[in-house]
């Protein structure tokens, strides 16, 4: 299971490059940012398209309302701020003016999860996937690396309807091919295996790739699925894989409550109940630290994936 690595970059830069490309290809794309243009890597779009860039200042509620209004007249607004301020801070604005009103707004959320790092828990949102997937009409996407974030950014412009796009800050290896096509709602099966299905999103896809080597060494054949779209969830990919492996590990940089794991368990409990283990933050806020220290402390690191796999497989054996 050799993965070709195409360098190391942050996913937010993938968003920035995708948005800049949309600036050239999609004249109806407009962008709004609440005083975090540099952090969101929106500078290139802003520079090339000053008339289509709207600086809202530190006023996220207004930004979401503006974006909803801008869809009337045919624009495709992309809003940019940190994930915490893209969701919890503006949940009611998104709920009424975007989701319920079915407006074609793309909510682009950076610095998601623990890997925001040193800023601490006020800025590390771990509840956003849950909040957003609860909203009717909302599509929720968590791309895995720089290339995929760029591809997803471009893909959502051609998707009619509200989208939540979640990405982050740390520099991580790039393993998605630069020319891959991003299909909303269609999971990527990265490795085929027979003992366990690992379903991961965001940075945890790379952590799961790292885990594959250790698993291989102890004779475990893992099927790794990059579930970049949390909603609509690719149920077919889950069920097809689980029919073969008989157990699941979900891995996400998010609270256990409400996230990818819970979405997967909803499918399994109805269609094919099998043992499932969660790699996720367990009902806790984060804290200051380096991204990798935090992933270790909060048990969303490579060894945690390996241990979860062992637990899942052992439960499968007991059940049989």
């Amino acid at each position, binding site marked *: 299971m050799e993965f070709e690595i195409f360098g190391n970059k942050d996913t937010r830069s993938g968003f920035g490059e995708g948005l800049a490309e949309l600036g050239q290809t999609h004249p109806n794309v407009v962008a709004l940012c609440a005083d975090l243009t540099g952090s969101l890597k929106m500078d290139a779009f802003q520079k090339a398209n000053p008339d289509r860039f709207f600086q*809202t200042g530190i006023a996220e*509620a*207004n930004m979401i309302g503006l974006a909803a209004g801008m869809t*009337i*007249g045919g624009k495709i607004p992309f809003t940019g701020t940190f994930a915490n301020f893209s969701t919890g801070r503006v949940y*009611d604005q998104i*709920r*009424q003016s975007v989701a319920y009103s079915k407006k074609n707004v793309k909510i682009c959320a950076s610095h998601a999860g623990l890997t925001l790092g040193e800023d601490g828990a006020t800025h590390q949102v771990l509840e956003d996937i849950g909040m957003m997937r609860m909203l009717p009409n909302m599509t929720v996407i968590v791309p895995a690396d720089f290339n995929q974030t760029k591809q997803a950014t471009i893909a959502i412009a051609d998707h009619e309807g509200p989208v939540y796009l979640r990405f982050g800050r740390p520099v991580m290896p790039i393993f998605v091919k630069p020319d891959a096509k991003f299909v909303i709602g269609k999971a990527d099966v990265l490795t085929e295996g027979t003992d366990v299905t690992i379903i991961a999103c965001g940075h945890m896809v790379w952590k799961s790739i790292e885990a594959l080597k250790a698993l291989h060494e102890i004779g475990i054949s893992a099927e790794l699925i990059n579930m970049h779209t949390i909603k609509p969830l690719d149920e077919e990919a889950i069920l097809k894989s689980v029919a073969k492996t008989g157990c699941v590990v979900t891995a996400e940089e998010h609270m256990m409550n409400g996230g990818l794991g819970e979405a997967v368990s909803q499918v399994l409990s109805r269609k094919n109940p099998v043992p499932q283990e969660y790699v996720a933050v367990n009902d806790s806020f984060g804290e200051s630290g380096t991204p990798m220290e935090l992933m270790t402390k909060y048990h969303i690191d490579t060894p945690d994936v390996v241990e979860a796999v062992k637990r899942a497989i052992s439960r499968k054996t007991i059940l049989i």
Partner: protein
Amino acid sequence: MENKELVRIASQVRRDIVRMVSAVNSGHPGGSLGCTDFLTYLYFEQMKHNAASFSMDGKNEDLFFLSNGHISPVWYSVLARAGYFPVSELGTFRKLSTRLQGHPSTDKGLPGIRMASGSLGQGLSVGVGAAQVKKLNNDPSIVYTLHGDGELQEGQIWEAAMYAAANKVDNIIATIDDNGRQIDGDIDQVLSLGDLGQKWQAFGWEVLRMNGHDFDSIRTTMQAAKALTGKGKPIVIIMKTEMGQGVDYMMGSHKWHGVAPNAEQLEAALQQLEETLGDY
């Protein structure tokens, strides 16, 4: 349009409002009756709009956003009377599967509505965004919004106010329904807005005032507001109204903000409101 014709339409709209809310024993008659004359004027004289073929994008049309969505009865009645959908549909207000939801929504596809509202404070942002897109599209039309005075207690209104002035969004005319009342009582007792005119001025808006129950005042002010568009500043009109206007027992109190009249009270209200265009 002559004032007497506007008065005739407004009388019918007021009948529609009290009949709609009474039929389902819910809804908000007070603010609806208070904004009847304004919305009648807006749709029957001021705005350039296409009732016969509604489009969500509304290109080259004036747009209206109701930010204080709870006064949906007056908006629904005016939209129906202006030709957006059959008047008979007013009888479905707040009933299961209706397009006339308790608060306005786009969800069921009612022509004339471009944004859900009800959770307060969001409509000014939406209107400003739509106004900026009109500029991008070289569309000279105007965006109108209506807000309750109590609604101005929401912080998002002031975010939008600051933004619109800073960005010279001068193709929006916001109107405030200054009836001085909210659910819990008089605004001055719940949470005073202070000097509203000075607040808007300080935020960089042109401020006009009008009497929301005098069509001459409304016409003069709305024409003045339109003449002020395109001059670098957003425009707000502080419109003095009486909650419950036109129904004597509803006036002078906040009590009828969100209470529907019973059968007897409805009859008393209808005695005061001439049927001019035919009840739905």
